[in-house]
Each structure stands twice: as C-alpha cells, then as structure tokens.
C-alpha cells in the first residue's frame, strides 16, 4: 500500500519547491561535507588566523597593533618593488593575452586549411611543464644566445635580456607563449555560441566584417572576455615559476615578483609580514575582479538573458 502512495507524496513535495525536505537537507550535507571540511580547515579558518596575525604585534605577545603591520609592509621597499613589478607585468600581459588569444580564435574561425592541427599546435605549450622549457629559454635569451645573435645580425648591439629593463618583455613573451592556447579555446567556444541568425541578419543588412565584430560578436563575447581577463590575471601571478627557474631567488630588480617576496619572507618566518601581505593581495584581487565584473555588466548588458 505505502508503495502506491509514494509517487503522490513526491509530487506534493515537488510543488513546494523552495523548501527542501529534511532528508534532502541531510543528503546535501553528507555529500558536501568532505569537501567543505577540507576547505574550512585548510583555507577559510586559517585565513581568519592570518587576519588575526596581521593585526597583532608578534605571535608571542598577541598585542593588537591594528594596522601597524600593514603600514610597515606598505613601506617595505622589497614589497613595493615586488608589487610594482607584478602590477606592471599584469597590466601589460593581461590585455595582450586577451587581445592576442581572441585574434587567434578568430583566425581559426576563418576558412583556412588544417584548422584542427593549428588548434593543437597553439594549445601545445600548455602541456609543457615550465621546468622543461626553461633551458631552451636560456639558450634563446642568454647574452650569448640565439636571439642576440639575430639582433646582432640586424646590426643592433646585443641585449642582456635577463638583466636589464628588457627582462619584463621576456617574461611577457614567456607568459603569452604558455597561456594563449588556453584562452584561445575559451574564445573559440564563445564564438561558436554566438547565434548564427543574428550574424546572418547582419550580413543581409550588408554590415561590414568590422561592424559585425564590433557591434555583435564583441557583445556576445563580453562575459568570456571578463573570464579570460580574470584567468590571465591569476595566471600572471604564476609567471614567478618561469622567473624563479630561470634566475633563482634574487633576480634582476625588474623581475623581483611578489612570490619572490613571499618566499623570502617564508624563509625568515615573519608571520606578521606574511599575513599582512597576503591580506593586501587578497583585497587587491577582490577589488580588481569586482571592477572587471562591473565593467562587464555595463558593457554586456544588452545581450544577457
């Protein structure tokens, strides 16, 4: 008997959608708990401790000094250097990554032969571990390296790529090399998702290629552009890998990144400094990402929904 009644009960529940049944709620907790436990233990709870550490004077005294640690870290010249370098790098590399990868995606949208092979080729750097490729970067960009030889053949004087103001250019190139493929795939997927009929109507209305790109495609792509920008921003912090593997703990001034600063601070185990730096970075990331969202919201409004 009760078996026959089951479906009816189910129906009743599904009508009251907003409220979860007790059983559902229990299941929801069961399936989420392993992950949530780990996230709370390894990320969230210690992050509150990080905030606490940033506000006290030292781990023994526990006396609140409020913003002193933040002020001292903002006045720290290595931190300033690292923050400036990282910011400069991101400001140059992120827009370039967005524009170039969009260009590549549009190139592969064109009617050219071997498109799928090209996609594979463009994506391939992503698969190459940074550690495996630094040797060849050394060969190419060393003072006696292949690029300088080319430069000298052109009649210019050789450049010390890793130890001059050109070093930022080198790491931008390395960054783009590694990340463009991934971003390109994101854009290819987004371009594919643009409704064909909208573009066909535009063609019938004799819109030029540029108009179609500027007024239609770009609008539909706006959320992807946002995503690629955020992703590139996060990845731009990872360029430390290349820099570290190429030049070690103390690179040339313009290559001294935030991660170098953190590594060296970890070595001296200065929790106050570390915590304050981590919080400042977290705040800056939140602000930047928030701003990007606001910009996207304004720009892409027309096609949402």
């Amino acid at each position, binding site marked *: 008997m009760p078996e026959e009644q089951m479906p009816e009960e*189910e129906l009743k529940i599904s009508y009251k959608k907003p409220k979860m049944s007790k059983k*559902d709620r229990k*299941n*929801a907790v069961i*399936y*989420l708990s*392993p*992950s*949530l436990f*780990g*996230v709370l*233990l*390894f*990320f*969230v*709870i*210690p*992050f509150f401790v*990080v905030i606490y550490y940033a506000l006290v004077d030292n781990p023994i005294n526990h006396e609140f000094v409020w913003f002193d640690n933040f002020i001292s870290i903002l006045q720290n010249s290595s931190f300033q250097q690292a923050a400036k370098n990282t910011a400069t790098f991101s400001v140059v590399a992120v827009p370039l990554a967005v524009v170039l990868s969009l260009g590549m995606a549009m*190139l*592969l949208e064109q009617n*050219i032969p071997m498109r799928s092979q*090209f996609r594979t*080729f463009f*994506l*391939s750097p992503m*698969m*190459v*571990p*940074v*550690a*495996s*490729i*630094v*040797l060849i*970067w*050394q*060969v*190419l960009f*060393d003072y*006696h390296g292949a690029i300088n*030889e080319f430069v000298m053949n052109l009649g210019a004087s050789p450049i010390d790529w890793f130890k001059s103001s050109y070093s930022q250019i080198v790491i931008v190139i390395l960054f783009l*090399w590694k990340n*463009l493929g991934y971003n390109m795939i*994101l854009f290819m*997927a987004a371009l594919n998702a643009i409704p064909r009929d909208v573009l066909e109507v535009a063609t019938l209305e004799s819109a030029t290629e540029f108009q179609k790109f500027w007024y239609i495609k770009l609008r539909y792509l706006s*959320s992807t552009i946002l*995503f690629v920008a955020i992703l590139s921003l*996060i990845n731009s912090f*990872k360029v*430390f*890998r290349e820099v*570290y593997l190429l030049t*070690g703990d103390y690179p040339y001034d313009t290559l001294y990144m935030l*991660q170098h600063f953190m590594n060296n601070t*970890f070595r001296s185990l200065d929790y106050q400094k570390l915590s304050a730096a*981590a919080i400042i*970075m977290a705040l800056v*990331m939140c602000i930047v*990402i928030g701003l990007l969202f606001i910009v996207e919201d304004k720009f892409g409004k027309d096609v949402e929904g």
Partner: protein
Amino acid sequence: MKKPKRRRHIFKKILLTAVAFLFAISFLLPTILTIANSFMSSAEINTNYGVIFNQYKETQYGERNTDYVAEKVNLKFIPDMVDLSQYSTVLLKSPEYLLKFWNSVILTVPIVIFQIIIALGAAYSFTRFRGRLKEIIFFLYVALMLMPFQVTLVPNYLVADWLHILDTRWSIMLPGFFAPFSVYLLTKFMRRIPNSLIEAAKLDGANEWQIFSRICVPLCKGSIASVAILVFIDYWNMVEQPLIMLSDADKHPLSVFLSQINTGEVGLAFAVATIYMVPTILIFLYGEEYLVDGISYSGSVKG
C-alpha cells in the same frame, strides 16, 4: 565583377594561413628544440651551447673548459648523430633524477584522484540541492579559486605547521585534495544533467547514493576526464608549494629540481626535461578533446 573578389578571397586565405603558420612555428619551436637537443651527445651540446653555459661553470670552479666551444651559440634542430647516451645516463646511471620524477608522480597522482572524488560529492550536493546557504558556500569556493598562490599558501602553511606535516608530502597533498577548482568545474558539468533524469530515477525508487553513483557520475565521465587532465597539468607543473612546504630538497619534485641541475650537465638537463614532458604530452595526444571540452566549459562565469 566576380573575379577580383574571388582573387582577393584567395589572397586573404593565403595570408591568414601564413600568419597561422608563423604562430604555429613559434608555439612549437621551443618544445621541439628541447626534444631535439636531448638526442645530442654531451660533446655536441657543449660545442653548441658552451658559450652560454660554460661562463657559469668558469665562475663556479675557476677553471676553463678545454673542449672546443663555438664562438656563437648554435641552434640546431637535427643532431649530427642521434645519441641516446644522455638518456642512458639519466635512466641507468643517475638514480637521483628518477627519484625526483617519482616524487612528482607521488605528489600529483593522489592529488588528482582525491581532489576529483571529493569534488564529485560537493558538485553533486551543489547540483541537487539549492538554497541560500548553498549559494553562499559556492560563492566562497569561486572566490577561493580566484585567489593566487601568494594568498592561499599562507593559510596552507599555518595549517601544515599546526598539524606537524611541514616537510612531508602531506603538506602539499592535503590542500591539493580540497582545492576548489574541480568542485567549480564539475558543478558546471553536473548542472547540465537534465533534472527529469534524476526525477525518473527517484520515481523508480533509487536512493540518493544510487542517483549519485549510477546516474550523475557515469554521465560525467567525459567531464571527469577533462577535469583530471587540467588538474594533472597544474600540479605536474608545481613550483611554489614545494619551495615553501618542503625544505628538504630530496623530496622536491622534478619540476623544481630541474633548474638546479649542474650547469656542466646541460645535455643531461635536456634529456631530463624531455622525460618530464612525456606524461603531459601523452595525455595531450590522447585526451586533447577532453582537455578542450574542459577548458570550454570552465568558460562562462555565470550559470
């Protein structure tokens, strides 16, 4: 009227293809060069790149290398003679490289497996049951995902210190198990499973575990492969965590150790670098479609 237009079309096609080729070459070149160089004998490497790597050697030992060294660096794609001596040295004579390779494997593989298992549960929970609290927690995951290493490593380090697992592999693996990236991506995939399927199973009397293990997980097989590939690449490439968590260099993965290879052994380094690429390249060759799918779905921020 028609002809010039057609000609312009062909011209455009050639031009675009040429551009694509140029890009393709510059994307492939460094990888190919590394692989090609690994097949050269150490004498040949020394001749070609001695200019670059010997200067460090000189400062290190204070003596000159007496081998013949070319004045200029000599980039070559095809070795004079294919020579496997570098590989035999790496694989047979110097166990330290294999040990470091093993370190990479033993760090990466458990992270991939457990991160996905744990994330599957969380993704299921986020997909099946919605509520205000769920949305907040999901937002927390996304925010965590967006934080760079420099931010998350500090909390990770503190916990590792409390649990007394610093200097052990657990200090890298445990935070890796719970990294929110897989949760985010798997949730996106799972939300695409039609609700009617789940409702139907429920009507047939399936319990929660059966819905999870017989319907949701099998339907996500492809996505699990995509996520696994992305996570594997990410951790195979790790540099930051071992530098901070493992002060004992013996436990470092090859990704960190490679840069410390003595500059006198450049030839060896090329071979080691190539060996280190093999797993990711194989995954790429066999799983490119999954990889592309995974990337594509990570795409839209909303939804």
